[in-house]
């Protein structure tokens, strides 16, 4: 709540000011020092005064008019010092930054009098632009997951309005911080020393600005950001009770029961306060494939699985059909009622097993099912130094490389599984990998350090627990597995510990860029001091070992492609890996526009233009070799209800404030806030009183 008055003076200053009116009164009521003036005769004057005394009270008032005017002057000055003001929709300040959220949730149609929330925001911004005075400049920034400067600072209101209309809804998530950082760069000066060791000085002059954030508040609090010279206003758009059903996941994967068959999984989320029944319809390349009904409880989600059997490759589209109790029978956001998935040709994974010889592994991978999942090649550790290994591992030709009792010099561009060895580099050795700046020398040092530092070993660790929910350990029973000795792992941050023992974690899986590294600290077969081969564990004799091998094959070599590509979000780059040595691929986006993609230095094709949702075709020549789907699948964006908060005093529900750094930015509904300062008007009045007094004193014009 903005207060009507702001105090501007300290108590002793007020004390001094309070002395002024009594002083004026004292000067008036102490005998007035009149200027003596000799006149020929007071005869006529006396008679005049006598006449005037008839209505003496009024005369007294009239005589003291100057006193009253002076008192009024002081009173007005005091009032001006109190800085009276009230909230109004008048613009306050000279520089404005209008941050307009154009994320997916802003396409919600739950605002009256406008097409959607973005339209409403544009309307409000337009209103503010109209209010701009000639001395005001404004900047337009739209933001979804990345900010975009729509219009630089200008005082050209027509241009601002024109540019405002160019803001289009996107299918992205929301990240306010980026937009704020952009605004921050303009309002808060960056400091840097001119010379090394000098004091830091302001490079750019600070430009205080008022930031208006037009958003529905579907984002996390902005942390680690200081507003500095920015004065934020947050205008929430949309309603608290907006109803929305959304598809929040759509993937295809191999059926667990029949690995040669695929199935589609659709997750439907209900962002309303009542249970709803919806129909999910699946289309493949425009023709109806299947439909299923799903009951979604309030504020929860439900999944549906569609068997795809041996459906051919193509574009999968999932549509949500339902009837809501809203007038339009539709929810407020239709963009998330449709989801896309790509169905690619079954490509067997390519698996390389580098081992000096491991019967258990060979047997476990020799099953028919394992061969369906991929072609498995066995090589000796000497192969790691060959050129063909280097080329294929760098080109990402393998889906999975299993290193048994050996380790490569550097991580390959593939998923990896290590038995009894740690991957190269510091990541798994408890040291943080210095990000980015690592040069070749330090890498070498790393390697040496890795070679020098013996991994901590534990003898006879007892398995305490294992992650039964992880796909690699699905249906794997490790209760009676005994291990002779094992490396105690120090998994990098973000890793999932698969097997925990009395000595510590002995198996873990961790992501590395687009790949996964799984490390088992113990060998299946070890080499004794005499060089004889000994069994390190009794696990290969259990049923769980081949199960683990199959799971690993499925998880790291098989199912990755589909699931990884399915989760591409709009704006994220897509890496296309393809065998062969062609230099260019063509990607056709959902709008049928062709994009040429060239091979990058890392030997992969990177496609950046994923701004549209839908299925993208990757063509080599005239042949579609691959498809990938782009979906937002953002629960924050699909939950279009404006984040509510309960007012502690009135127990009414209102839009929640947003938090930027440590500052709560109040949600302002209905109007764009500005404090209307009245002190200028009051001071103007005081000036007028002063002029009036002077005029009356000099011209003797009373009333």
């Amino acid at each position, binding site marked *: 709540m903005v207060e009507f008055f702001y105090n501007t003076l300290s108590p002793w200053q007020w004390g001094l000011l309070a002395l002024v009116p009594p002083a004026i009164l004292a000067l008036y009521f102490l005998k007035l020092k*009149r200027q*003596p*003036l000799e006149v*020929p*005769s007071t005869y006529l004057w006396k008679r005049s005064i006598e006449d005037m005394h008839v209505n003496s009270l009024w005369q007294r008032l009239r005589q003291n008019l100057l006193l009253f005017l002076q008192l009024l002057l002081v009173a007005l000055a005091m009032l001006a010092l109190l800085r009276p003001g009230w909230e109004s929709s008048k613009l306050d300040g000279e520089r404005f930054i209008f941050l307009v959220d154009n994320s997916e949730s802003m396409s919600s149609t739950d605002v009256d009098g406008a097409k959607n929330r973005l339209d409403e925001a544009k309307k409000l911004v337009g209103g503010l632009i109209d209010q701009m005075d000639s001395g005001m400049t404004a900047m337009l920034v739209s933001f979804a997951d990345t900010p975009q400067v729509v219009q630089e600072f200008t005082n050209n209101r027509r241009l601002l309005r024109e540019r405002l209309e160019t803001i289009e809804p996107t299918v992205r998530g929301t990240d306010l911080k980026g937009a704020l950082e952009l605004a921050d760069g303009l309002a808060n000066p960056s400091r840097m020393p001119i010379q090394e060791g000098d004091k830091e000085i302001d490079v750019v002059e600070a430009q205080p600005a008022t930031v208006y954030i037009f958003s529905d508040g579907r984002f996390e609090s902005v942390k680690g950001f200081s507003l500095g010279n920015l004065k934020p206003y947050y205008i929430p758009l949309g309603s608290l009770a907006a109803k929305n059903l959304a598809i929040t996941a759509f993937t295809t994967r191999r059926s667990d029961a029949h690995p040669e068959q695929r199935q589609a999984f659709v997750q439907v989320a209900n962002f309303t306060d009542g249970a709803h029944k919806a129909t999910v319809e699946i289309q493949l390349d425009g023709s109806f494939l299947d439909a299923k009904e799903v009951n979604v409880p309030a504020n929860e989600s439900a999944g549906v699985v569609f068997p795809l059997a041996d459906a051919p490759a193509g574009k999968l589209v999932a549509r949500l059909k339902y009837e809501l109790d809203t007038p339009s029978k539709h929810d407020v956001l239709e963009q998330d009622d449709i989801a896309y998935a790509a169905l690619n040709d079954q490509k067997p994974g390519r698996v390389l097993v580098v081992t000096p010889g491991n019967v258990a592994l060979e047997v476990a991978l020799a099953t028919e099912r394992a061969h369906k999942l991929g072609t498995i090649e066995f090589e000796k550790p000497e192969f790691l130094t060959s050129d063909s290994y280097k080329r294929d591992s760098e080109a990402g030709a393998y889906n999975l490389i299993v290193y048994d009792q050996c380790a490569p010099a550097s991580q390959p561009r593939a998923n990896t599984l290590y038995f009894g060895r740690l991957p190269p580099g510091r990541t798994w050795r408890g040291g943080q990998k210095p990000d980015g700046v690592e040069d070749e020398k330090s890498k070498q040092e790393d390697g040496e350090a890795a070679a020098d530092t013996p991994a901590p070993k534990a003898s006879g660790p007892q398995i305490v627990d294992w992650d039964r929910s992880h796909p690699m350990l699905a249906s794997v029973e490790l209760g009676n597995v005994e291990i002779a000795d094992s490396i105690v792992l120090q998994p990098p941050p973000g890793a999932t510990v698969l097997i925990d023992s009395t000595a510590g974690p002995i198996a873990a899986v961790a992501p590395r860029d687009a790949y996964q590294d799984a490390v088992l600290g113990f060998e299946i077969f070890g080499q004794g001091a005499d060089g004889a081969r000994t069994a390190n564990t009794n696990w290969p004799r259990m049923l769980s070992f081949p199960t683990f091998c199959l799971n690993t094959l499925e998880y790291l070599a098989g199912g990755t492609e589909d699931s990884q590509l399915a989760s591409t979000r709009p704006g994220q780059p897509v890496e296309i890996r393809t065998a062969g040595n062609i230099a260019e691929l063509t990607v056709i986006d959902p709008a049928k526009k062709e994009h040429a993609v060239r091979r990058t230095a890392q030997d992969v094709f990177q496609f950046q233009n994923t701004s549209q949702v839908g299925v993208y075709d990757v063509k080599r020549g005239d042949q579609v070799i691959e498809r990938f789907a782009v979906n937002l699948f953002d629960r924050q964006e699909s939950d279009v209800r404006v984040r509510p908060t309960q007012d502690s005093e009135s127990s009414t529900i209102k839009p929640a404030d947003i938090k930027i750094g440590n500052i709560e930015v109040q949600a302002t509904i209905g109007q764009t806030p500005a404090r209307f300062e009245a002190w200028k008007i009051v001071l103007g009045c005081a000036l007028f009183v002063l002029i009036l007094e002077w005029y009356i004193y000099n011209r*003797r014009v009373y009333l």
Partner: protein
Amino acid sequence: MLMPVTESNLLPPDLMAQLERLELVTRKVFRGRMKGERRSKRKGQSVEFADFRSYVPGDDLRSLDWNLYARLDKLIIKLFLEEEDLHFFTLIDSSLSMGFGTPTKLEYAKQLAAALGFVGLIRTDRVRIETLGQLSNQRGPVLRGRKSVWRMLEYLNSIEAGETTSLAEGVKNFCLRNAGKGIVVLISDLMDKAGYESALRFLVSQRVDVYVIQVLSQEEIDPDVKGDLKLVDVEDRDIAEITVSAPLLARYKSTLNAFVGGAQEFCNRRGMNYLLANNQTPVKDLIGSYLRRRGLVR
């Protein structure tokens, strides 16, 4: 007769030239003391025939009309019109209040007196200029003839503001001193707290032709004052505290108008001539137009 060489502030030469052609007029014909240039009601010795009458023993035989006696055998006396002088009095108020204004009201009064006196002198009238403050036994010089102009001016120059006699007292003393008939011109601002009425009544009781010329300075007519003032009466040190305001000024003006109007009406009712003179009006204009219209000069 030679023109007296006079160079005076009171009577500049151009004014003098204008005044040469004028003479003092009285509506009443009064008996003068000496033979003058004015026709009198009385019969006397002059060249102008007036009437015949029968001889009465004791009459001057020189005035018998011998031609009629020869024709009619009757003693008829031929009467001639008598020519006499006019008594012209100027009474100047020289109280302290007359010392205000630019020129001061007294200065203005002196100029006026000089001009009127000059007119009287060149017509060989009997001119006497006195001030209100003179004691009852003190008399001003009696002037007659053109040669006395310088004496008149000298006397006028010697008059200074500072007398404290009240208006009524001064007029009364004047009347006691000068019982004769003639023209009395009272030049005053009439600002007397006791009122001017009693003073003027003294003049009415005299059988004189009275002209009251009220001299007011511009500052009195249209005061230019502002702020909170303590007005000090220059004569009796009386104090009036005023806060100048438009209504007060308006009230002052209406009071002044009432005062002036009252004096005029008072004079008119009693057969006196009243004239208000602003010290900004040149004496030349005042005599040339106003007084001429009023019939004091011709």
